C-alpha cells in the first residue's frame, strides 16, 4: 500500500495550511462555515476532541495498530511531503 503515505502527506499539508491561515491546525477533512470561529472554539483543532477522547481520526492520520491502513513508519520528512504534494 505504497500510496497510504500520501494520505499522511495531504493531511499534514492541510493542517499546516490551516495553522498558517487561521492560527490553529483545524481538521482538514471537514467543511466549516466559519473557520475563525471554529479555531476559537477548538473542538476541531488537531488533535480534535473525537481523537483525544476516542482515538477516532477520520482523516486517517492517527491509526490504531490493528487498522488495515496503519503503516510501519512513525516519521515523515518535509521533503517527502513536498514531493507528493508539489503539483497542487
Amino acid at each position: 500500500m505504497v500510496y497510504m503515505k500520501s494520505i499522511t502527506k495531504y493531511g499534514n499539508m492541510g493542517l499546516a495550511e490551516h495553522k498558517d491561515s487561521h492560527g490553529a491546525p483545524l481538521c482538514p477533512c471537514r467543511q466549516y462555515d466559519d473557520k475563525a470561529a471554529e479555531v476559537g472554539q477548538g473542538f476541531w483543532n488537531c488533535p480534535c476532541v473525537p481523537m483525544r477522547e476516542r482515538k477516532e481520526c477520520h482523516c486517517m492520520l492517527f491509526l490504531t495498530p490493528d487498522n488495515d491502513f496503519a503503516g510501519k513508519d512513525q516519521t515523515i520528512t518535509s521533503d517527502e511531503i513536498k514531493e507528493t504534494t508539489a503539483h497542487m
Partner: protein
Amino acid sequence: MAATSLSSSTIPSLNRKESFTVSALSPRSTSAVTFQFPLRRIRIGDSKLSSLSSSTRSTPRAIEAKKQTYNSFDDLLVNSDKPVLVDFYATWCGPCQYMVPILSEVSATLQEKIQVVKIDTEKYPSIANKYQIEALPTFILFKDGEPCDRFEGALTAKQLVQRIEDSLEVKS
C-alpha cells in the same frame, strides 16, 4: 468525438462569483467531466488519453477530468440521464485524495449506471451547506435529482461499487 486541447490561456477565468467547477467522470469518452458555471460550454478533450483508447478498450482504465459548463449544480442534476454520485471533497483532505483513483475506477466500472461528479467544498461552500456536509469526503447518490443515499469516509472500489448498486437496486 473530436478531442481538442486548449492551452490554459484560452480557458475562461474561473474567478467570477457564480462560476462553479466540479469534476465529473463522463462515460461517453475516456475523459471525466469538470463542470464550470456559468453558461459557457467548453469541452476539452484529453489528447494523451485518446491515443491510448484503441489499445486499452477492453479494460476499465483511469478516467481523467474534462470541462463542461452548466448553469448550476441543480441544472447538472436535472439534466443527468443517470443517477449522479457526488463526491464532496477538499484539496488537503487525505482520504479525499485517496479516493481520486478509486472514483476513476468506479466510474469506469459503473459507466452505464451512474455519472460521477466531484465538488470542491472550499470553492462551493453554499452547495456544501445546502446538503449539510460536515465530514469529508461525503458521498451523496442522487436519483432523479434527489439524494437517495449518503455516506462518509474513504472506501475501496469494491465497497463503493457494492454500496452504489445496493442503493440503486432498492430505489428502482
